[in-house]
């Protein structure tokens, strides 16, 4: 009997193979499975994507063309062209504009919720921000298509409203809630003793926030922004609907573009499995995977930096 419990501290009476022992074992197993599931899934996804596209991406795809040519013509006869530059620039420009929208909004909201709002107002605001994060992306895309599109045409007198501006604003609003939540956590992690010390020295509220709270929460705020960037990079449906889905090197926010993710979503369903086009789409997937992986890694490093200084 004792060999089953070797090295374990057990409550008195539990060192028999009774039902509680089994429950303990089962719970342990379930928690363990849950714990490693993330690793299993990420490895499985990586293997799948790599198996479908990595060979093509390394040996067959002309990387020079892929990274420098804006010509995405995967179905042109007789010779298809796989130029990804317009798609990369499209994703980057939409994400960039989204961050211009989201960073001031989300940091402002986080500071207000974390430092100014009290009691009821604070709780309501937090719930509302989380509710905003729960709106499905296809609904955002629909808003972009039906509300923002005619609005942009009317306001700016441009030929079409499905543009970087449209997708960027929509994406900014989508990324803001998650950024607000993480940024607010970072502000909350700043010990109150810092604020009290600063106030005791006669600092105004603004001085406390600007010179004490924000600098000590800096890493967490950077992580919030990076996760927002990652969210923007990976968003598909809303960008597909609001950006115009047009292979184009943009010169202004009023140009239509096409995102990497949207290209996969629109084309993968209709390509024959194993064809060049199919593998080229998986190559885009590998690129996206690498970029989001890097962004998340940077965010993680930023958060760790914050903890280490404590």
């Amino acid at each position: 009997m004792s060999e089953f419990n070797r090295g374990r501290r057990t409550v008195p009476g539990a060192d028999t193979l009774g039902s509680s022992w089994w429950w303990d074992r089962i719970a342990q197993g379930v928690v363990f499975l849950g714990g490693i599931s993330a690793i299993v899934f990420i490895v499985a996804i990586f293997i799948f994507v790599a198996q479908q596209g990595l060979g093509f991406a390394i040996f067959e795809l002309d990387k020079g063309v892929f990274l420098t040519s804006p010509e995405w013509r995967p179905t042109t006869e007789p010779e298809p062209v796989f130029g990804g530059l317009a798609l990369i620039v499209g994703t980057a420009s939409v994400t960039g504009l989204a961050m211009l929208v989201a960073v001031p909004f989300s940091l402002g909201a986080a500071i207000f919720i974390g430092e100014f709002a009290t009691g009821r107002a604070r709780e309501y605001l937090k719930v509302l921000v989380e509710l905003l994060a729960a709106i499905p992306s296809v609904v955002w895309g629909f808003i972009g298509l039906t509300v923002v599109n005619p609005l942009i045409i009317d306001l700016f007198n441009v030929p079409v409203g499905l543009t970087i501006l449209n997708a960027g604003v929509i994406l900014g609003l989508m990324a803001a809630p998650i950024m607000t939540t993480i940024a607010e956590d970072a502000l909350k992690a700043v010990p109150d003793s810092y604020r009290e010390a600063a106030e005791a020295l006669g600092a105004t509220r603004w001085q406390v926030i600007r010179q004490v709270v924000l600098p000590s929460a800096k890493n967490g705020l950077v992580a919030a922004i990076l996760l927002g960037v990652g969210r923007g990079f990976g968003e598909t449906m809303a960008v597909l609907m609001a950006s115009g889905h047009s292979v184009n090197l943009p010169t202004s926010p009023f140009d239509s573009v096409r995102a990497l993710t949207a290209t996969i979503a629109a084309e993968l369903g209709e390509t024959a499995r194993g064809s060049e086009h199919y593998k080229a789409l998986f190559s885009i997937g590998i690129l996206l995977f690498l970029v989001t992986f890097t962004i998340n890694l940077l965010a993680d490093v930023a958060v760790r930096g914050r903890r280490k200084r404590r």
Partner: protein
Amino acid sequence: MRTSTWAVVGLSFLAAACGSNVNGSGRTLIQNKGSDTLVNVAQAWAEAYSTVDPSCAVAVSGGGSGTGISSMINGTVELANASRKMKEREFAAARENGVDPVEHIVGFDALVVYLHHDNPLESITIQQLAEIYGDGGSIERWSQLGVTMPAGTSDEIVRVSRQNNSGTYVYFREAVLGKEGRYKLGSLDMHGSKDVVDLVEKTPGAIGYSGLAYATEHVKLVPVSPGEGQGDVMPTVESAVDGTYPIARPLFMYTAGQPTGKVKEYLDWILSDVGQRIILEKGYAPARHF
């Protein structure tokens, strides 16, 4: 025991792969997938046929001609809808998988050039369409076509196109830009026949192409002329049938091998007077006179 289990699994897999399968309740299920252009009429056919032969259920899904054809190649559907012909490469891929697709024309569709309701353009030629949509084409503004857009509307032509593996996209390329023609990049590539019409409806400077069945009263259908001075033809069911409309195309259903059994009965019914009346009601031209 083990061997027989595997045999059952293998057999049911085989049944699913090659031909109509009988499900639990004894009804035959026909999988029908493909062209976005055809999906509405395919659904109408399936619905009407459920009263003709209650022992046969037809499951229809869209996704585009490419989806239907790749499902046919992979052997997962009995009937694939397509608004373009299968390419030689696709036939070869199917034969490699042991599928021998057979083509059936089930109707015709006029590919309509859609404009915004307020666009004053009276007609357009195939050459002008090629200059608008084709790589290197010179027409970028409405004024180049000799029309003055209403005040407050941009003169720039907003090209609305389709995703690059849809049957409509491929047909339009062959019919307007030539077999090895290339599209001008920078068009707004919509993911469905209806999306094209919806976007054109909301965008004053837009031009788009889509099936006749998707016409609404909120958009303008522009007559197309095969060439300068050759007369304009309005896209209608009649002009698609008699061949005067220059960009009308056949609509196909592909079967894996010569159709047999329930699939043959269904296809025969589609080509019967009843089936052809349904495609006509949905705004397409029938495959034959009746």
